[in-house]
């Protein structure tokens, strides 16, 4: 899957609420005050994407505006029709 295709898939899965989080990602989100509303908004409106690179816990890193228009960067895996968010 190339990055353009991955971005399209991520937006679609986020719109369908097919999102899971690791416990680590949930803790990070809570610490920086990013509730699920901000996360979903950033994923649906993700503007940029890059491969996370070898040795990382994620396959892709996307950035998009949260509910307030601030860019939120999210690392994730696309697996079995689900987004698994690993890091903020």
């Amino acid at each position, binding site marked *: 899957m190339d990055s353009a295709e991955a971005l399209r898939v991520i937006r679609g899965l986020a719109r369908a*609420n097919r999102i899971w989080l*690791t416990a680590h990602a949930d803790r990070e989100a809570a610490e920086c005050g990013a509730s*699920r509303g901000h996360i*979903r*908004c950033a994923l649906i409106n993700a503007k940029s994407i890059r491969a996370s690179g070898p040795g990382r816990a994620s396959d892709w890193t996307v950035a998009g505006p949260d*509910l307030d228009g601030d860019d939120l960067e999210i690392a994730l895996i696309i697996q079995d029709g689900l987004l698994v968010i690993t890091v903020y």
Partner: protein
Amino acid sequence: MRTIELERKLDERTFRGRVPCSVSRKRPELGPLIDYHDLGVFEGKVVQSIFGQKLLGPQSFRFCRSFCEMSMQAVADLLQVDRRTVQRWESEESPVPPWAMLLVSKMADERSKGRAVMRTWLTELADEDGRPTEIDLDVA
């Protein structure tokens, strides 16, 4: 069923709850995974607690707002205040007024229960502002 404890710290209060979790067979190294839906149920319990206990504070306000998936501008429009006013409330530059906290926590509480009475009512009130205040009358 496996569960995991989630925690949110808002305005020096700590909310904890246990939600179901799963471990991926393909990527067990990721550890326990939390479904977005279950996270929503947990956050719903948090906003119900904020509303039920009439809690007041900038982080609680922001949490309730984002639970409603509303931007600062959207909530400012509904409450008929400036966006910067909401920003000042959330950044603790000025205290969140109890009336604003009550309205936003009520909206969040209703959303957690699948209702939107307060939001609909506030939207209708905000729309009233755009209506003409004068009516031209022709007399023949």
